[in-house]
């Protein structure tokens, strides 16, 4: 189960105070989720800022029907998906060829290994989005399959299938590295 149980009875009167409270509590989680999607520190930071601006602008509309973190996570996922679909991302992506992309991936991995010493982490970040996100949410952030299903709007069995396939793909990637 996830390590923070949301206390919905906590009442914060002023929106700015409420935003401060939410940012202190969730900014790390939101940043991590955005990073899992985008794999870029700067883009993840931009998305994170946009998420909390949207949270602030929509605090009055938040009806407490779901937990804060479910609401904020869904905003984050939507923004990341919009960004990946956006013209600016495609333009960035289409600017290079496949070989350029492979070179770029290799360079990123090299950077990871040298700076962060995160070989396995970088291998997980190499996986396709549909496996990368469930694996990261489950193993790095401790979410249950039911919670991941709710964020990603897919069935719980589908989450389990993706976790299984993701582990298999990771196994193949790590074996190749050996």
């Amino acid at each position, binding site marked *: 189960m996830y390590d923070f149980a949301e206390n919905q009875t906590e009442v914060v009167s002023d929106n700015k105070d409420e935003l401060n409270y939410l940012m202190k509590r969730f900014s790390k989680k939101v940043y991590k989720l955005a990073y899992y999607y985008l794999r870029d520190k700067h883009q993840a930071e931009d998305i994170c800022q946009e998420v909390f601006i949207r949270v602030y602008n929509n605090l009055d509309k938040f009806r407490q029907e779901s937990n804060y973190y479910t609401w904020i996570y869904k905003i984050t996922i939507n923004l990341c998906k919009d960004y990946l679909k956006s013209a600016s991302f495609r333009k960035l992506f*289409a600017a290079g060829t496949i070989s350029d992309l492979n070179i770029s991936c290799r360079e990123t991995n090299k950077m990871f290994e040298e700076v962060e010493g995160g070989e396995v982490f970088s291998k997980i970040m190499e996986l396709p989005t549909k496996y990368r996100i469930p694996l990261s949410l489950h193993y790095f952030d401790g979410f249950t399959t039911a919670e991941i299903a709710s964020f990603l709007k897919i069935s719980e069995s589908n989450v389990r299938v993706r976790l299984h396939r993701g582990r298999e793909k990771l196994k193949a990637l790590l074996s190749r590295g050996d």
Partner: protein
Amino acid sequence: MNNDNVEKKLLEASKQADKFFSSFDYNKLNNTVLLKLKHENNKENRIKMLGGFTVKVSVIAVCFILILVISSSLGIKKTIQNNNDFALLGKPVSQQMIDFGNTKLNQWLNYFKIDKPDKKMESNLLAVVWESGTKGDYDMVYSSVFENSNKPCPVYNLDFPGNYPSMVLISSQNDRSQYMHYRILGYKGNKLSAYVEKDYVTGCKIEVIDGVLKETRLIPSSYSEEIKDTDQMNNVVTYYIPYQHSESGNIISSVNFLRIFKGDKIALFGDYDVPIDIAGNNLLIQEDTNEENSIKYLHAEKSGYQNIYIKSKDGKVIKKVSIEVLSNDDINEY
């Protein structure tokens, strides 16, 4: 590497992730958000202070200038566009990674802008699927042209339970989204093929729900030589249910149960043409198949509950898919 080792590696990755994310300055991020909000508030206040009249005058002036600029540059833009169309050839306008659930291969989907030989300035897209070869090079394994279409759409996966390979939906729209083209791709043996190919689907919306493609399209309520009123178009919903044969000969479908509404259609398609039986009380009526006989269409005539049986050619292997057909009165409940 066994499963225990993978779990150990994942635990190791979790520690690496913690270390990686701990370096980020979250306080700075929070302060930036607050600064942005303050800036936005100041901007709003300034606009209010300007007063309605000033704003209106400014808006009218800007619109007027924009109209002048756009109308004068239209001719220039057209010429530039014509020249650039040929320059764009060879470079993909979009590139997406695709995944058929095969752990050994990497696949990419590229869309290229192409013109027809008569050089008529239409927006056509050529979709190409590349697959990684044994030496790390890429081979083209599938291609298809999407005519009069310039907007590639995101790829969707139609997943099967267990470890069976997925199918992939690729699609594109035209600029004003009047229609859509799409293909459902999957492996037949070692060959990547299109199971479903649809072109110029009017008013099309597609979504994938638990491995089933839900296609909503507009069709005229009555066919005549001339469509006089676009309001006389009806929504038709079709659920595309994929199936495939496992190595052991079993038939696997992406769903065991599907809930639809009266009037909706079901289309069954898979890696082999197989007979289909419908048992029960005739809620579902089998319609014509497509030309290649690879897609079987059913139409929900009445509400109720019914099973569809997908059979192997020899009739020995049977896959059951249960269908619940809701009446229009049930719509509000769902």
